């Protein structure tokens, strides 16, 4: 199990009712980690255009993560 710090933004924060949480995860990839969070928070849904960042760097959903990492879940962006 790895312990990671997860942060939620905008619609994801509204859906989970929190801006961050520290969790223990058995997931291998960030996609699997998000899947675990969807299972834990009933109002959280996958979004096709969602992005993920690992320690302030945008990465692929299939990326692995390490114990102590900070994971940022971004819902679809809408700047401008």
């Amino acid at each position, binding site marked *: 199990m790895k312990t990671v710090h997860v942060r939620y933004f905008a619609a994801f924060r509204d859906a989970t009712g929190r801006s961050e949480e520290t969790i223990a995860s058995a997931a291998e990839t960030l996609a699997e980690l998000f899947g675990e969070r969807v299972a834990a928070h009933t109002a959280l*849904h996958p979004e096709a*255009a969602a992005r993920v960042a690992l320690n302030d760097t945008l990465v692929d959903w299939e990326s692995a993560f390490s114990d102590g990492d900070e994971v940022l879940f*971004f*819902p679809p962006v809408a*700047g*401008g």
Partner: protein
Amino acid sequence: MSFSITDTPIDLPAIRAALEHHGCGAAVFFEGRVRDHNEGEAVDRLEYEVYRPLAQSEGEKILAEAAERWSIERSVCIHREGRLELGELAIVVGVVSAHRDEAFQAARYIIDEAKVRLPIWKKEHYRSGEAHWVNCQRCGAHAHAHSG
């Protein structure tokens, strides 16, 4: 090149001053303003949430890419954060170059990339009293279900 996020109104004259350059015959500015409607809904105001650390680095990357692709002299991009009223400036892009083609193309590239790459989220507050995060299909469905 200068990219920034601000939680106070965008100072257009300051941007124009920063882009004064006697070697440039062309200055192109894009103003993104808060519109009073979207997809059939009357919009009252907006709220922008920004994840600043990544917005800053990604914004600087976009300006660097534009400078690499087109022969431009200077560029500025400023995006607002927080609550905005109708008509307010949400984003301003300014580019100066010797000739107009480069300035037009670079400015177009910067605004297009900014909209899809910056970690910025827009919440529309409607006259009906409802509010939705833009571009978030299933989150919107959820919000409807609970505001019913």
